[in-house]
């Protein structure tokens, strides 16, 4: 048996070969480019592994609350949200002269914005939301109704994911909300994620929860 480190490297190489050779028998990793269209979204299903390239925006608790309460017209937000992905992330960013340097950029728990997300999806033309841990029924229904999808990225892998953020383009609401809760505009390349809630009303999180619920009953019956 290979040692841990070697096995990991072998596995990573296998993953890379799958990306380069999508015709291999195992499920290929899909490359997707932003902005996404309605058709792009409909081609995605739960369990799909994707690599995202393009411009995405971040937003956590304060941005969601603000977007919901203000119901801004698109023109008042400095970034175009049409077809993009709203990433649940409060990054670590260092100011380097005039520019911003990305230090760490992993996902935060998406469930905290459950009460706002369905309205944000309906009002701002997003085609994707991304975070970790999955979301609830309200969001799942909004994804279906508005042709949008939930991407689950890798919780705690902030150093790795920061390397996939090629550029910090801009920021909105920095002074008002602070660096963690501001809306950052990132250019990402090959940002890894898994589709766990799709536009067909399917949720991998519900499936796992049902399965674990049966085990829980057996263990505590």
């Amino acid at each position: 048996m290979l040692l841990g480190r070697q096995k990991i490297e072998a596995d990573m190489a296998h993953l890379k070969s799958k990306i380069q050779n999508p015709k291999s028998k195992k499920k290929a990793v899909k490359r997707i480019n932003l902005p996404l269209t309605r058709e792009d979204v409909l081609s995605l299903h739960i369990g799909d592994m994707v690599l995202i390239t393009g411009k995405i925006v971040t937003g956590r608790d304060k941005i969601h609350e603000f977007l919901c309460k203000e119901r801004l017209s698109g023109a008042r937000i400095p970034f175009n949200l049409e077809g993009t992905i709203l990433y649940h992330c409060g990054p670590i960013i260092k100011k380097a002269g005039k520019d911003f340097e990305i230090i760490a950029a992993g996902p935060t728990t998406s469930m905290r914005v459950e009460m706002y997300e369905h309205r944000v999806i309906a009002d701002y033309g997003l085609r994707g939301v991304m975070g970790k841990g999955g979301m609830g029924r309200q969001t799942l229904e909004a994804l279906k109704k508005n042709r949008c999808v939930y991407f689950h990225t890798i919780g705690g892998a902030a150093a790795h994911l920061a390397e996939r953020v090629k550029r910090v383009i801009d920021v909105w609401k920095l002074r008002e909300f602070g660096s963690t809760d501001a809306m950052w505009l990132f250019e990402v390349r090959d940002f890894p994620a898994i589709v766990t809630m799709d536009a067909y009303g399917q949720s991998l999180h519900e499936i796992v929860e049902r399965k674990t619920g049966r085990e829980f009953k057996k263990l505590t019956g």
Partner: protein
Amino acid sequence: MKLRDALVDLYRKAATSLPADVEAALISAYKKESPVAGSILSVLLENVRIARKTERPLCQDTGVPVFFIKVPVSVSQRDLRNTIIEATRIATREVPLRANAVDVITEKNSGDNTGIGFPIMYFEETGRGRLIVDLMLKGAGSENVSRLYSLPHVELKAERNFEGVRRCVLDAVYKAQGKGCPPYIIGVGVGAAKDQVSRLSKEQLLRSLQDENKNGVLAKLEKKIMHDCNRLGIGPLGLSGKTTAIGVKVGVNHRHPASYFVDVSICCWADRRSRLIWHI
């Protein structure tokens, strides 16, 4: 070297370098997992490598700093507190850490990880001539899914015994699903009062994953709970798999005849803890 600078280094080490025992547990889980869960674990391990190499935080949520400090008799706790606060400000700027201290009244972020009761510091006097500082950077995702129980608990059919404790932990982990970044490390505290068991459960998270409980009954309980947690099948990041927990540690205090509190402290896979031993 000044103590303050050693504390800044302690912050850097905790934030950027996963303890060896946790990394070993993730590697051993990786060997057993299915392709999807395995590929998630491989990304986590890759992240550990990058963070250590580049000296960048493993996770953007550098958490609430929690200090457990063993203080020699001659050292002032008040001075130590001030030194830790000063080191926290410097570390936030230099590591850097994310500014996580928010004023509850004004909703303003202090910007330097200090504030009322922030960082958290627990002091204990020791007879030895050296200062021991354990620092844990406790992420909010896993803190938010941690739970306190008062037994008996009718819905869980949890009585006041270790079977009841097992039921509480399984309930907390089942409800947490993937929200707190599994594989989890779980600290459990049992005792008389809710503040006491919450501190005790968190203190369990300082133990090495290889550390076997000195009490045989508790050691057996820890193994049983870990086995059952993994039967739940929540898996790495909650996307199903064999590895839901990589460590369960139980601590007990005496209880009141009428009380049986159980606190379940859940920690994400990025269990960032580090120790400084300082000779006075």
